[in-house]
């Protein structure tokens, strides 16, 4: 299985950044043109074992959970947000780089990564992965594989 890694810009957790949003044009992933992809949105659910990943990734997370389920993530603006959106960086596409998300230490988290359209209003792919424990300071890396959602899903995934 070939995987396309999306670089998520470190320190760009305050929201979409137009200059970092461009991906290599012309590349197709399962019928999805890569230049349709604009952002990656990260959200973390508390009480993660209450949720079932295969269901969550079928459509927009914001339609399936309550705001109170979301762990507040610290953006590069120093403020806490229910989700962070990062622009993908075409220059490092495929190199498997990693972003770092700042969250309160805790246990039983579930991290959801949603791949958003160029304008950020459509869900293109979604993946989630349990995070059993987030300790203060640096933690081990977490890999999330996002699967494409059916084109019939037309919800606006933005969590603000």
């Amino acid at each position, binding site marked *: *299985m*070939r*995987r*396309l*890694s*999306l670089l*998520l810009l470190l320190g760009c957790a305050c929201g979409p950044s137009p200059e970092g949003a461009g991906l290599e044009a012309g590349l197709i*992933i*399962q019928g999805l043109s890569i230049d349709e*992809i604009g952002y*990656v949105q*990260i959200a973390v659910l*508390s*009480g993660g*074992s*209450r949720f079932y990943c295969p269901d969550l990734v079928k459509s927009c997370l914001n339609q399936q959970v309550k705001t109170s389920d979301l762990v507040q993530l*610290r953006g590069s603006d120093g403020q806490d947000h229910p989700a962070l959106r990062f622009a993908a960086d075409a220059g490092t596409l495929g190199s*498997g*780089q*990693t*972003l*770092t*998300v*700042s*969250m*309160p*230490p*805790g*246990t*039983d988290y579930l*991290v959801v*990564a949603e*791949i958003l359209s160029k304008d950020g209003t459509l869900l293109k*792919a979604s*993946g989630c992965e349990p*995070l059993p*424990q*987030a*300790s*203060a*300071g*640096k*933690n*081990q*890396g*977490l*890999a*999330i*594989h*996002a*699967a*494409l959602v059916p084109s019939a899903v037309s919800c606006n995934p933005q969590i603000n």
Partner: protein
Amino acid sequence: MLVESGEFERAVLAIERALMDPNLTGPVASQLYELQANAWLYLGKEDKARLSLEQLLRLSPDYQLAKGTSPKLRSTFEGLRAAPRPVEKVGVESFGVFGGAEVGRPVELRAELKNLPQGAQPKVYWRKRGAGKYGSSGMTTEDRSRFAAQIPAFELPAGENGVLEYYLEVADLAGRRLASSGSAERPLALEIAGPAGTSGPALEDGDPWYTKWWVWAIAGGLAAGAGAAVAYPLIKGQRAEVPITVTVQQ
């Protein structure tokens, strides 16, 4: 009984207090919930009566209401039994050591919990590393969300840099496990420092974040106890940095 004499508001308060008793047993709690539901119903608080009945059913799914129970209450109860509402899972928001861990001083453990049903009790367990059996203690609270417990000084490893193993478990009055942090098989670990004035403990790499809380309290120049009110927000302010790599599958 206060409920029978019509002093329903006083009854509700008395029952609330009784339900917070850490020594309460399941059968007694079930009866208290029934009384509480009755009292709320008489006070016209049907939503609260329903909540009491839900707590009762979670505790005792096969519970039979007393004869003579009002038809309305019985109908609500049977309806809830037939189609229970989904239960919010109890969450351990945080759990860890507060104020340092040092030979000769008790260790204070604090926990923040959410969605804790009435009657459910958090309990901490501990042992010296290598010992077979865990000691235990219930946790006290003022608001049913923040809890504290102390491990007595004599329970700590005697030598310098001994390791204390501990964990948190939340159970309902029927003894069913609702949530935990660590477990008997995989306890959290805390290295105990020598007496004050000696060098501080060096925590093992990979120790859970909560074992390091005390470091923050001391780094802030805060003594346990007197500085507690100030130290708590410091503890709360810690952040976890999690590297996340996202891939799109093909």
